[in-house]
């Protein structure tokens, strides 16, 4: 962050003295790198044709032109512009990486078809197979959304009950401690047998994977609430409902979020495995299906989509946590 800011300032100063106008140097280099990638892709023939080469060249040229234009106007874009400036070196590296990637796959054939794919091979997958990919995303989204949210709602409610009520804790905690550490994927054979449909079995697995860490951490969070908070609230006239909703839960929220992050990661893991085993559509199914046909370009294309989806959800959870737990800044280091 700091070093990038320093680079940027240094770059701006030297250039502005030459042109008497601020120019984003990294933007120019990036434009050149993207142009280089376009030339490499267009000028040499593919060892084995991949398709969609011209579209990729067009995108690279278009991207390069935009970057070149931005080099002179990025200062006017405010926050977006600052983000671009920060990632300037990445944009250069991306262009260089495309050029190198084209060379060693499509152009020289060092990394051969079908096991490897040049970038325009992946683009070709999106262009040709986008409908099926969208259907798969929709299927997975349905499974994940229902499974994850029912899991965390049940896990959170159960966790509050376990942390609050001695009776619940007496009966529930031993069970949770016994079942909790078992990886959700270990349930796969049993659930596919126990549930009438694979969808229901997969739902159960995703809910289990996300619910258990949330339940355990919520319970321990509610348990470790400073007793003095309850005393304060009680002397001020709070009833039990207030103690749970306005004292125990907010105080336990930092723990709950740790559980949510764990549940999120576990849910991705079990989701893909469950889809590989019995689903008709979905991201996991797609990976499995395309591997069987040695369509590795499709597999890579899907992996990129999964990376974006999963990291997007993680990022979203971070944003929500920062919103809700802003008060923790200064209390805890993170």
């Amino acid at each position: 962050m700091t070093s990038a800011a320093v680079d940027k300032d240094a770059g701006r100063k030297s250039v502005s003295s030459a042109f008497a106008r601020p120019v984003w140097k990294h933007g120019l280099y990036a434009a050149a790198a993207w142009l280089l990638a376009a030339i490499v892709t267009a000028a040499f023939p593919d060892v084995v044709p991949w398709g969609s080469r011209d579209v990729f060249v067009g995108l690279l040229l278009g991207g390069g032109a935009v970057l070149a234009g931005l080099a002179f106007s990025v200062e006017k874009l405010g926050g977006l512009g600052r983000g671009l400036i920060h990632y300037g070196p990445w944009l250069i590296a991306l262009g260089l990486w495309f050029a190198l990637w084209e060379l060693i796959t499509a152009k020289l054939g060092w990394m051969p078809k079908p096991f490897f794919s040049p970038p325009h091979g992946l683009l070709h997958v999106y262009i040709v197979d986008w409908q099926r990919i969208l259907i798969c995303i929709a299927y997975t989204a349905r499974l994940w959304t229902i499974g994850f949210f029912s899991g965390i709602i049940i896990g959170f409610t159960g966790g509050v009950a376990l942390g609050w009520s001695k009776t619940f804790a007496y009966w529930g905690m031993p069970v949770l401690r016994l079942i909790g550490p078992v990886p959700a994927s270990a349930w796969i054979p049993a659930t596919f047998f126990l549930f009438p449909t694979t969808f229901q079995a997969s739902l159960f697995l995703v809910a289990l994977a996300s619910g258990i860490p949330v339940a355990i951490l919520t319970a321990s969070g509610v348990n470790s609430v400073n007793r003095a908070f309850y005393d304060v609230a009680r002397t001020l006239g709070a009833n039990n409902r207030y103690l749970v909703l306005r004292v125990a839960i907010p105080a336990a929220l930092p723990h709950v979020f740790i559980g949510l992050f764990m549940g999120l990661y576990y849910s991705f893991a079990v989701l893909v495995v469950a889809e590989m085993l019995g689903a008709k559509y979905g991201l996991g199914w797609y990976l499995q299906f395309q591997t069987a046909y040695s369509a590795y370009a499709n597999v890579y294309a899907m992996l990129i989509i999964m990376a974006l989806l999963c990291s997007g959800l993680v990022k979203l959870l971070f944003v929500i946590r920062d919103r809700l737990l802003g008060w923790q800044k200064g209390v805890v280091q993170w």
Partner: protein
Amino acid sequence: MVATTLRAASANAAGLAIDFQTVSHQYDLDGQPLPVLRQIDLNVGPGEFIALLGPSGCGKSTLLRLAAGLERPTTGDVLEDGTSIASPDPSRVLVFQDPTLFPWRTVRDNVAIGPEARGVLAGSQKRIDDALRLVKLEAFASAFPHQLSGGMAQRAALARALVNDPHLLLLDEPLGRLDSLTRLTMQEEILSLWRHAGYTVILVTHDVEEALLLSQRVIILSERPARIKSEVVVDLPYPRRRDDPRIVAQRQTILEFLGFSA
């Protein structure tokens, strides 16, 4: 003065009479009984201001917890206006030794806990602002507790208690963390609030002078298990001056009771 505006809403707040009837109390410490209070007999009249002095760990906070209704005495009984205290009630508010502000709430939302818990938040906005002004925290209303100094946190805790219009105010070394100037101001404020609002105050303090400047009666407790060792009536008009020879003399008496013969 702000104290007057806060009082205006509580014009008929009267003090409670508190009666400790041969109260003994013990805690359970790793399975061993730990006797903390022994045969405490203490009558606090309605509107009276008393101070408790005693060595640290003798059971002063415990006495306040019993009056607040957070604990039930092991034997004996604590009565408010003649009826046994069974549970906490916002008419008897305890300001704890630690400020124990809720870290996830702003200062203002902390002060609002009482009205919110009793379901009268909407009608209490002005009182909350008055309470914040009284403890001079109006500029920090939207700050979080971790952004406050120890003294500011203690003042916020005081505002959180006063906003409830208590009939009995239990103060557990509430000024212990304040710097000496703020301390003087807060002593004056507590005094003027008490004289206007007329609630009963039990103040635990480790400062003999503070006890003498504020209270009408100083109760001196023994080492744990605490019993009442002695009692000093401070029959002097307010405002009192710390260099008043009668205060100086009584300070000497109390220090001797506490085992310091200077």
